[in-house]
């Protein structure tokens, strides 16, 4: 079953007004009506089209997981906790100068820089934290520009709007670094390529990030602004459990907020998200519980495998084995997110058979709901 053909009216009634919008940006960029502004998708005027790409590629409108998985991996949606994967490992950049700026091991920055240097991609759509510490989408076209995008703000950012803005006659090969919701939207685009935009076939590399939830770029930013001198902030971090902190690093040291205080700023939609590890990416990257300075890396596709292999060969990435306890914890956490989210979805829809946007096989749905 494919996403039904609907327009922006339904996008608002089914997604935005129900708190499901993830601010992924897939509906913005080309559309003159839908615009991202300060943590909201604003509708500038009445669009009367009955069928819109805004609705079609939204990661919170219907997704047939098997169909999408078939498109990306050639197999139906995996019942494994971490989705389809070729290999799970630990990695960190061999460039020690980078480590202070990057999140954990710097694997994403390293892989992107390599992909650019090797001509594997010509540019990458990333999130850049601007001077006022608001995240904004950015098309990086050099290693230097990739470096400008290191670190995470943990706030949602409409990255896909930047992809949509690329002129349709532009043939440059692209990489995208995305949150799980955004990776879903890209997977939808791969299944049914958008019209009047740069070809989705140009997207050669999707690096997905691990995500348990993202923070509201509006409300959380206000909170930060009220509690910190944002101009002095160097880096944000949520260290893996059991730290339970949100850390802000400045030149003078670290300020921490208890995670409980931060959690109220999470995007409501994250409650209904099943995907912790960007299951439709070429490569998924996150932290490693208990081991600082390293990244967990899940290689999912041949493209992902080739790139990591090249990084290893060229001495850009140091690769390690992911300890089995870490893998077990990661799987547990991922499964827990799926179960929780699906139960929340049923609570929201009020019907065990209505999983809102999630198109799972009944068997897997029952298993997760059990």
């Amino acid at each position, binding site marked *: 079953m494919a996403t039904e053909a609907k327009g922006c009216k339904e996008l608002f009634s089914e997604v935005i007004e129900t708190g499901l919008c993830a601010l992924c940006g897939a509906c913005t960029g*080309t*559309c*003159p*009506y839908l*615009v991202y*502004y*300060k943590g*909201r998708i*604003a*509708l*500038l*005027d*009445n*669009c*009367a*089209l009955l069928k*819109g*790409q805004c609705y079609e590629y939204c990661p919170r409108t219907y997704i047939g997981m098997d169909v999408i998985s078939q498109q990306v991996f050639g197999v139906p949606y995996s019942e494994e906790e971490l989705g389809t994967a070729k290999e799970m490992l630990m990695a960190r950049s061999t460039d020690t100068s980078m480590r202070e700026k990057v999140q954990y091991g710097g694997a994403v920055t390293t892989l992107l820089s390599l992909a650019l240097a090797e001509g594997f991609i010509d540019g990458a759509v990333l999130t850049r934290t601007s001077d006022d510490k608001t995240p904004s989408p950015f098309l990086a076209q050099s290693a230097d520009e990739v470096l400008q995008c290191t670190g995470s703000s943990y706030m949602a950012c409409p990255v896909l709007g930047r992809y949509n803005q690329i*002129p349709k006659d532009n043939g440059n090969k692209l990489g995208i670094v995305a949150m799980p919701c955004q990776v879903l939207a890209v997977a939808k685009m791969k299944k049914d390529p958008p*019209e*009047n935009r740069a070809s989705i076939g140009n997207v050669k590399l999707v690096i997905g990030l691990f995500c348990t939830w993202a923070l509201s770029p509006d409300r959380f930013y206000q909170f930060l602004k009220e509690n910190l001198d944002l101009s002095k902030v160097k880096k944000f971090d949520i260290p893996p459990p059991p730290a339970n902190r949100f850390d802000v690093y400045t030149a003078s040291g670290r300020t921490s907020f208890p995670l409980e205080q931060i959690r109220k700023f999470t995007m409501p939609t994250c409650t209904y998200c099943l995907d912790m590890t960007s299951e439709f990416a070429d490569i998924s990257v996150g932290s490693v519980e208990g081991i600082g300075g390293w990244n967990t890396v899940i290689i999912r596709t041949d493209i992902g495998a080739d790139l990591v292999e090249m990084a290893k060969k060229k001495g850009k990435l140091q690769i390690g084995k992911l300890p089995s306890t870490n893998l077990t914890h990661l799987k547990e956490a991922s499964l827990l997110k799926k179960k929780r989210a699906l139960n929340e979805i049923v609570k929201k829809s009020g019907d065990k058979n209505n999983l809102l946007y999630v198109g799972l096989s009944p068997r897997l749905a029952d298993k997760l709901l059990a």
Partner: protein
Amino acid sequence: MANIDIDAPGTSQLLIGNEAIARGALEAGIGFAAAYPGTPSSEILGTLAQAAKEMGIYAEWSVNEKVAMEAAAGASFAGIRALASMKQNGINVVSDFLANLVMSGIGKGGLVLVSCDDPSAISSSNEQDTRPIAKWLDIPLVEPGDFQETKDMTRWLFDLAEELGTLCMLRSVTRIAHARGNVRLGELPKKQLNAYFDQIHDLKSVMPTTFMPIPSPLRHSFLHMKMDKARERFEGSAFNRYVGPNKADLLIITCGSCWLYSQDAVKALKLEDRVGILKLGTLWPLPEKFIGEHLDKSEKLLFVEEIDPFLERSVMEMVANLPPSSPRPIFYGKRSGHVNAYGELNPDRVIKAISTILGLAYQPRDIEYRKKAEAFAKSNVPERTMTFCAGCPHRATFWAIKNALKLDGRGGVVTGDIGCYSMALGPTGFFQVRTMHCMGGGAGVANGLGKLGQFGFDQPVLAVVGDSTFYHATIPALINGVYNQSDFILVILDNSATAMTGFQPHPGTGMTAMGEPTKVVSMEALCCSLGTHVEVCDPFELKGTIATLLEMMAEGGGAKVAIMRRQCELVRAKKEKPPYRVHVDPEKCIGEACGCDRLCTRVFLCPGLIWDKKANRSKIDEVICTGCGLCVDVCPQGAIIKEAV
């Protein structure tokens, strides 16, 4: 506009009603004329200003109607005949002064007020009959029924004003003001005017001359005496006349343009020997004797007049006071429903009323003929709603306002005002304007909305106002907002023109009505002097304008000013060539396939852009497009291309 200062007595000129008024004023020897533009009155001062230097008189566009009337009164106090003209709304603006002026009386120079009403509100925000104010103020009121009368009445009214020592009023309507007819010219006075404020005007009196309404009860009784005298004059006036049989089946009582409709109707029905027409030119005080002499012409009276039942009610009052033995006619008119109680009249409506009363079969105009006539009339008219001109800066401003309000997301409210931009309550301004009343009213309303924070109100408030309207009536509202810290943004749409009424100069233009350069009253200097945040934007810089509005809305904190400055396109286009040559790239515009849902021709709606049904894409209408280039920033495909000329 016609030359109203032709010195050729006895010859006939084709003049519109407003020119006839101006000519009448010149023949009366006025030295001073002041007005604020407003359709259908604008050509009165317009033509006087044109002739002013030649005629040695002074004419000005005043900042508003109240100042115009007060200035004209000043001239009268110094012995100069003076005229103030305005549309119906101006009468409201000036009424406080008038209510005091009638008590003080005028000076030695005759003072005449011309009010042009706009039945059906063809060019107005409201439909309003100003005749009742004459009753309210106790001033003589006349209304001309054709173009010759228009000129002659105006001339005569100055004599009457001087004789009575009171302000006199002439009421006109759109179909007199803007229609054209033959006028036989009279003499133009040659005498030199001398202005002098005579401190002791009465040689027997040792009291200094004062013009003030006190002691009011005494002065009120004087005013009534003046009105009694006016009535005497009106009883014998040639502007009132009866045409018809001695005994009629129906007596029409009418005035103004309705006299013309009544004559047409009676003629069309061939009822000249059955229906009489009593035409009144002097409406207030009512010439009761004259009317009484004709009341026994028929048992049935039909009142044909536009907007309010002014004559109908006045004659009813009069009849109620007749001796018991007098005939009691039946009244037909607005009260009985035979004549519409609002909107313009026309001969057909009068024909219908007469036919109904006399029990004749009403023959509406042949339907086939009507259809043909309408089709013919429409054949050369483009199919579109009221719209801003191609290249109009207001379209850019409202595009910016719309987008800024949507991005802000708090449901911001735009209060509107009087001018071209009033149309922003419709599709051409993207339905942004939500209130619209009188000059300056939008800023006043914004003052209230902007103080509702304590009741949970957090919607941004934008008051849009034109440049001329800003000077006219908005400054006190802005001062109030700054002083009382009302949270709104006054958005001044400064197109450097009083565009709606025909590009009359105003205090911001650096030009007087008589074409002399003058000081520019800087609106930003004026606003800055209030100590408030003032921004000046070019609305064609859409991104910057939207960003400025968003910042101003976000910061809150009392009344602020955003000036949207770009010259009216009609003014610019008269002086310069188009800045760009604009075309739609047929490769890039992919029409219905775009996903923009025809943004440019469905939402943006510049008349310079048209939807080519055959090609299924947009194109530029080269005849209409003024080459402003704004649409280039609106097309999401970058399909509209501008090249500098």
